């Protein structure tokens, strides 16, 4: 384990932040303050914490999208306040609260456009990664994540093929939470480890425990390093979705007995135990981290909610649709 105590504590802070964000999203949706069907990350916090740790530790710059459950990573990229405001549909959002969390997009901060339709972003990021390479930008890569369901789309294979042929600096990341909406991963792909697909493109692929933020961080760091050397590769992390597909999903399609003892499968609890064993964490720090993270997020929501909502004129702004006067009328 190549992480200092400080790094481990920050990792802890990030896993808690993901947990709190997930809980708050659920809360704010139930209280009607967030529109649309948002996909909560509960149960998968170690994935985001691992990714964030890797991003912070490495000197490699990433440009990418995130899976729709990695809101913590989106927020890290575009800034917490602009992220939360976008989620709330407020003008302080990174796109004025008009595009929404589904379409988060902030190129200057490395956030490539998120898509509501699944399947296309891997190939899109491949194009961006090609541009990075062609511009001679060293140690800059494309980061292309998807869930276990999204990678069934044909274009994801096409993207891997392109990446392998053009030797693009890109890391394909599979967040395998075992389920896609209501469909278990066994009904999506006939593979034990989804990273094995990499072999079909002569690429390396690894599968690690996605509930261990350290394992995730290490795998992502390795993958980023390979990518930075123009060796596209695949990292799969295995985790578990606790909540429904969307907030409020009754999950009738699924055996919910795991809910009886969430602590036993909780990546936050597990990481806490490990850090306590290592002597890095104690109850006091646990409490303090939880409080500070909660405060930051609640403040963000409060600030977001205090902002205006875009006007009709802003929404129907011609310049938002076309770059010049040759577009035809809206």
């Amino acid at each position, binding site marked *: 384990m190549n992480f200092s105590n400080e790094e481990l504590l920050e990792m802890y802070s990030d896993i808690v932040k993901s947990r709190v964000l997930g809980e708050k999203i659920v809360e704010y949706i139930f209280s009607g303050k967030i*529109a*649309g*069907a948002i996909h909560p990350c509960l149960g998968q916090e170690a994935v985001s914490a691992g990714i964030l740790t890797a991003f912070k530790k490495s000197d490699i710059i990433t440009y990418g999208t995130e899976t729709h459950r990695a809101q913590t990573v989106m927020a890290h990229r575009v800034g917490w306040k602009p992220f939360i405001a976008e989620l709330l*549909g407020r003008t302080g959002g990174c796109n004025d*609260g*008009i*595009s*929404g*969390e*589904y*379409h988060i997009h902030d190129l200057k901060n490395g956030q490539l456009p998120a*898509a*509501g*339709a*699944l*399947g296309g972003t891997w190939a899109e990021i491949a194009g961006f990664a090609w541009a990075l390479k062609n511009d001679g930008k060293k140690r800059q890569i494309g980061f292309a994540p998807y869930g276990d*369901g*999204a990678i*069934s*789309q*044909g274009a994801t294979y096409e993207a891997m093929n392109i990446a392998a042929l053009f030797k693009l600096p890109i890391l394909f990341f599979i967040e395998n939470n075992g389920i*896609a*909406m*209501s*469909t278990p991963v066994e*009904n*999506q*792909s006939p593979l034990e480890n989804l990273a094995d697909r990499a072999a079909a493109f002569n690429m390396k692929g690894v599968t690690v425990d996605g509930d261990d933020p350290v394992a995730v961080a290490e795998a992502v760091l390795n993958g980023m390093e390979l990518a930075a050397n123009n060796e596209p590769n695949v990292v799969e992390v295995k985790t578990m979705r606790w909540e429904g597909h969307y907030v409020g999903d009754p999950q*009738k*399609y*699924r055996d919910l007995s795991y809910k009886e003892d969430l602590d036993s499968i909780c990546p936050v609890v597990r990481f806490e135990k490990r850090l306590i064993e290592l002597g890095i964490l104690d109850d006091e720090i646990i409490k303090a981290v939880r409080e500070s993270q909660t405060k930051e997020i609640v403040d963000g929501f409060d600030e977001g909610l205090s902002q205006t*909502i*875009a006007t*009709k004129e802003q*929404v*129907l702004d011609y310049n*938002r*649709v076309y770059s010049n006067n040759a577009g*035809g*009328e*809206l």
Partner: protein
Amino acid sequence: MSEMSVMKALNLAMFEEMVADEKVICIGEDLGKQGGCWGTFTGLQEKFGENRVLEFPILEAGYTLFSVGAALGGYRPIVEFMFADFVTLGFEGIVDIAAKIRFNSGGVDSCPVTFVLPQGGGGKSGAHHSQSVEAWFANVPGLKIVAPTTPADIRAYYRAAIRDDDPTLFIYQRATMGLTGEVPDVLDEVPSLAKAGKIVKTGADLTVVAYHRALLNAMAAAAQVEEETGKTIEIIDPRVLIPFDKEIVFDSVKKTGRLMVAHEAPERGGFGAQILSWVVENCMKELKAAPVRVAGVNSIIPFGDLEKYLYPSVEDMKAGILKALK
């Protein structure tokens, strides 16, 4: 008769056709225990089994094509795209493959697939989950496009689409899933897709042709205008866009001398232009004023409540009616 929601009508139509014809199968995502993303498949897999309600991975292109193969193998697939927007991924299968099967077989093999497209706004889910797609397919010969609105019509025309031997897009408006209405307990006869137009309301001064949410909004607006002006408005729900029931519209326009066409899809390049053209080509002499279109803004759909600025409201319909009446 019983009161029923659009959602239940969709479910009922599939249930009835699956009972009537054991070759009817369902294809799509999350159709099993979840009963489909919209609940419209509830109970079907339980009742008819996994070999009639096939739950697929997320590969719209693949299962669109698969459905054509299954159709050639003697089946009658219903293929759900969770959101109509995702039909972009099935475009090749529908446009290049399904639409051309019969022709290239020399008129021997039909391709009885029903592609189900829940479309339009109301869900507040932004640019990739709110589009209206009928015009994307309207220039593709070989396809039929069915677009009913009320629960009773949804039940009847969904069944008609499933029964029809040609590839058919069955498009309904997602926002009206909860709309309720009287539905006959038994459908005496599954209607033909030909001559499907229906005069929802008679009137003398203006013909309005509209479907889906635009129909509902136009009806509300028409009531207001009638109240305020004393004019009467005839409203036609085409229910099927291809083949379009031209005669019912021509007859109405020949009577009223005026036309308004409304839909939720963007105005430019929308199917309303085709309806307007047919009317002008055939009723020019009878037209007393320029026909009017009321449709969606030619722009991208924003997330959340803001989507309302994109779709034609009751007020927009009212303005359109008043303009057409001038």
